[in-house]
């Protein structure tokens, strides 16, 4: 039986090497659900530090497997790895330094999991979502003429927030956040995932997520 540190990316997400992108996304969402900080699925089995690390492992595995080019490269190296060796791109080396404080429950993380866990629940049921602030209109009159990505970027800059801060608050990879701001949606997973991330990003800025999604939908229709 392998230790968790010895698992390759497919084993970490509990998918077959032949899994489709959709299956990988679902497996990743299940990992997020399992290891999220405000839940008890790992209660008494994992410490806070271990839970955090498991979450990070899932993130790293997903980043590679969701990108077809990176996945092909990984598969090639995996085939060349003999059974006794550790898997390529040793996950532990990719992990950021572990935090000493327990992670705060993140409205962004909950937003990302929302559709997967409770598709029909009202937002007001969950205390983390309920704490999202009253929607605030940005003070820019030209805000309504901006595209979605520009709007988010403008609000963020006006608030004095860096992309790193947003990434830390929402647990969304900084690469994805940049792609959202630049509206390179082809670099992102499926459309439902884009909407999840836009929602989480908007909530972290304490702006009306519904309006952001509406704007995104209308722009996509045009």
């Amino acid at each position, binding site marked *: 039986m392998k*230790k968790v540190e010895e698992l390759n990316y497919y084993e970490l997400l509990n998918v077959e090497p032949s899994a489709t992108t959709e299956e990988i996304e679902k497996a990743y969402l299940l990992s997020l659900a399992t290891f999220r900080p405000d839940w008890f699925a790992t209660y008494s089995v994992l410490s806070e530090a271990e839970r955090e690390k498991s979450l990070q492992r899932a993130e790293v595995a997903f980043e590679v497997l969701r990108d077809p080019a990176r996945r092909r490269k990984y598969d090639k190296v995996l085939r060349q790895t003999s059974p006794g060796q550790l898997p390529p791109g040793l996950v532990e080396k990719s992990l950021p330094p572990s935090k000493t404080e327990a992670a705060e429950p993140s409205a962004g993380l909950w937003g990302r999991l929302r559709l997967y866990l409770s598709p029909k629940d009202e937002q007001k049921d969950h205390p983390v979502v309920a704490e999202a602030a009253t929607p605030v209109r940005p003070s820019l009159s030209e805000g309504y003429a901006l595209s979605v990505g520009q709007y988010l970027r403008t609000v963020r800059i006006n608030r004095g927030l860096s992309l790193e801060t947003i990434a830390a608050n929402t647990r969304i990879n900084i690469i994805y956040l940049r792609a959202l701001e630049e509206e390179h949606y082809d670099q992102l997973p499926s459309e439902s995932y884009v909407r999840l991330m836009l929602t989480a990003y908007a909530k972290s800025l304490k702006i009306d997520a519904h309006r952001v999604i509406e704007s995104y939908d209308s722009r996509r229709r045009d």
Partner: protein
Amino acid sequence: MLNPACPCTDADEKRLLWAVGGGKGGTGKSFVSANLGLELSGDLDVTVVDADLGSPNLHTFLGIRHRELTLTDFLYRRLPLTQVASETGHNRLRLVSGSNETIGQGDLEYFRKRRLLQQIHELPSAITLLDLGAGTSFNCIDFFILADTGILVINPEPASVENAYQFIRATTLRLLENTIRKCGIVHLLEPLIQTRRQAGGTVAGFLEFVGRQDPSSAHLLATVLDRFNPCLIVNKARKNDDVVLGRCIAGVVTKYLAVKLNFVGAIPFDDDIHACLTSFDPYLVKHPHSQAACALKLIAKRLVTISQARRRFVPAVDLSYEEGGRAQLLRTS
């Protein structure tokens, strides 16, 4: 060196033995046992055995107020278990009702336990369902390991989840202990006991240690663990989160506790269950089309499919090592 010439016994592949346990009390083990029995007995001969030796109440969930014969008659009057198994009046379901004796039943003497285990195996029904008590007593754990399929019933609450993990850890360590004793590799007992006593001791860590010292024993123990595949039911589910919880727990157990746990389904919370209990009506008979009933039926189908597909492996029915007797490892292929 291991002696591979362990005597093997062929058993009837078509007969299945399930055990319903779960660590925490009040999760709905008896409810699940009774209603799975009701559902399956529509097509098959099924016997449900109330093996909750301290506080039996399986008969209540089947709407039976008066019991002619109970496990007490088997244990102390030495009636055969086939005679104690009584018709329930529902389909082809028979019930071995729990013991009337309420003191000390959790600590059954070795020879009574052995007789019970052997006669459970000899019951002629297609499926025998054991309703175990709460906790991690040796009785509970040994019966759970004995079964072809162990079924863990939990509720979507932190205490229940915690007890479930404790139960799985306890059964896994007991399974390894039994195997070590049976195969005469007793030099591994002390490291296993150390693992059990350590707060952070894990089965994976123990297997890694054994792998360094004795690779062939490590392979044997890994094979035994590989064949131990319990199933998980989340009872009293109230929202989608609770269903996802079952999948999450199955993943955690598989990855961190060295046991492949199958999540077979969630049963929705239903106020009518309590109403049926108070009126002594079996739930599936009274509400055959409710959401909970549909969930039970689906779970029953899944359990049958999983059990039939699995190779039957029966470790350590013979507890003779406790009395210094000759050990046997029973295996059916």
